[in-house]
């Protein structure tokens, strides 16, 4: 699924606490397809190893986990706290620090 094919893509750079573990991709794919299939997720995490930055992209196929009891599963499965419901709805950057150790 290319970025162009999915229609609207919203993305944001450097969500400070993201560890690029891609738990969000995996749980999203389970909601979307019933299988473990990150390639089919509505969310994509990309780590740029040249400078350590992370970009998270949200595709138009995201349905905010319609039908799931506790709302967007990616938010719940992100242990690092990099995603919030506000993020998923509005794709806005947070002001969080990078490692949380400052």
């Amino acid at each position: 699924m290319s970025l162009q094919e999915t229609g609207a893509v919203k993305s944001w750079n450097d969500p400070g606490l993201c560890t690029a573990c891609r738990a969000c991709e995996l749980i999203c794919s389970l909601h979307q397809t019933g299988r473990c299939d990150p390639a089919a997720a509505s969310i994509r995490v990309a780590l740029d190893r040249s400078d350590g930055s992370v970009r998270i992209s949200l595709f138009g196929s995201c349905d905010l986990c319609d039908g799931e009891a506790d709302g967007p599963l990616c938010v719940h499965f992100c242990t690092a706290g990099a995603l919030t419901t506000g993020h998923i709805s509005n794709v806005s950057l947070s002001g969080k620090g990078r490692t949380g150790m400052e």
Partner: protein
Amino acid sequence: MKGPYGYAGRLLRVDLTAGRVTVVSSVPYVEEYLGARGVAQQLLFDEIEPGVDPLGDGNKVILSAGPLVGTILPASARLSVDNKNPHTGGVGSSNAGGHLGPELKFAGFDAVVIEGTSPRPVHLYISNGQGELRDAEDIWGLGTGQTEAVLRRRLQEPSLRIGSIGPAGENCVAGACLIVDGARAAGRSGVGAVLGAKKFKAIAVRGTLPIKVFDSRGLLAAARECRTLLTRSPALRRLRESGTHGAYGVATNAGYKCRSVRNLQDSYWPAEKYSHIREEQLRKYKIRRLGCFNCPIYGSFLYHLPGVVCGVNISEGVPANAVRAFGENLDVTSPESVLLTYALANQLGMDCDMSTTLIAWAIELAENGLLPWNEVDALDLHWGSPHAGLRLLPLIAHREGLGALFADGIDEGISQLGDASASHVVHIKGASLNEAGVRAHKGYALGIVVSVRGGGHLDGAPNVEFRGISPEVSEAMFGVPTGGDPTAYEGKGHVVFGTELRKAVVDMLGMCYMTSEWLDHNLLSPDDYARLLYLTTGIKKTGSELMTLGRRVHNIEKAFNTLHAGFSRRDDTPPGRLFDTPISEGPWKGEALSREGWNRMLTEYYRVQGWDEESGWQTAQGLDALGLPDVAEKLRRYGKLPGA
């Protein structure tokens, strides 16, 4: 090809001599030993005869991911890497995290078997159900980070997952390893040299296939429970906060653990020295936290390097192993030196353990006047030098200058350097020994020394000795009350045995060792793993049955060692300095191993295993009782079965 639940369903055979790849069903391979290390070690035992040169055509390298890998279960991302070990001549088995294991599953493969020798440098590209050998002439010679960057750019695929060797592997050097995701080493097993001898530069994987699981709802619920358990564990919280670097620092400063100091001359290092290289001192270089695939523990970080190393200025790290290797074991108090030496080892493709074993050997030789003085000065081979490792490692990796003397490992190094050099190298069965807790913590020492891989604390070395578990907990886990009493020899044979079985379970399934009872006895038990296996695959096993399978895998590995390397009781003996040089200061002052205590403990371990107490070898009776008559027959054929 429709795969079973959890498994991808395919195995890739790569014949480098013929330049041919063949896709076969993985089903027959995983039937008996479930996956990853279990499958790989059985295959190596069956297909490699004694006498095969580890750096020759007949060796094989198996990359495999267990049935839980790539599923929604947390921390299920391990890649097993198995081969005949050029350091020891016996078992090679290592493990790497990151994202390559899951990507292999998403590309439709449970395992890749690499055999033969390519006439020219190649790399393997794997994508959805297919594999292809491609030319690697233009990336041969590059560091591992540069290799990854070139392959991702060339394929226009930023999500490509890569395992590669560096110049050390290409030059078939001791300590050469496979580096995954730029920094995660499948180390200790000499696999980098094996792949270099095969002219195999890298494996690059991109997969977009789904993994089906047996009970999707049940597994999701179990995954949620696991995540809660893992995120609430106090031991794992420390890892999440500051990685193994921080956690190790806390444990040693509080006196639970020891250190590996100046080529294991001591297990005590002053807190004042450690304060210079503790985790906080590296914070200014940190960019962000990093995690393996779907891991809620993520005890790793990405760093800006204070310099450029083999064309890269960013590195993941820094594990406790690296701090031990390039900090206290070399008496180094420069945090920049620790970070840069670790990054350099990764780029050259050398594992931390053998790197420090060789550097520390060189320094101890220099201090004893056994190396030419001009070389010693040029490389600054002194304890505490921030330069020694940075200067010597490239020479070893490229077989240049003084490095050439160390490049072929310990036995060859002794023959080059002379007999007087032998007492200055610290090793087990030809493999590196860079470990804390090997004088005061008796069970930990036993687990390291008897490991089938030749050393290493991620086999049977019990972490419970650092945590002071109660006699009741120890009894429940191991059948003896002394697990939490570090200086007791009694019962430790049972404790090591039980630890080995638990590790084998984790290694067959593909979950991270950190999810197990090893660091926190309230985490996942073999019964828990059995339930997760059922939910993922539909395979019904009890925890006890899983441990029995693990015991059989371990006995296959033991037999491989007996057949290929001839190890016996005398090889299950620590280096003399662990007996003769007690800890100099600190909470464990005066502790050393006693020969009498060691012999009692080792005899107990052999008895628990059902092995012959005099030789340390397996017996026909013991192997038949385990359901391994084929293994017994092969040992008998080669005259390695006592009483047969």
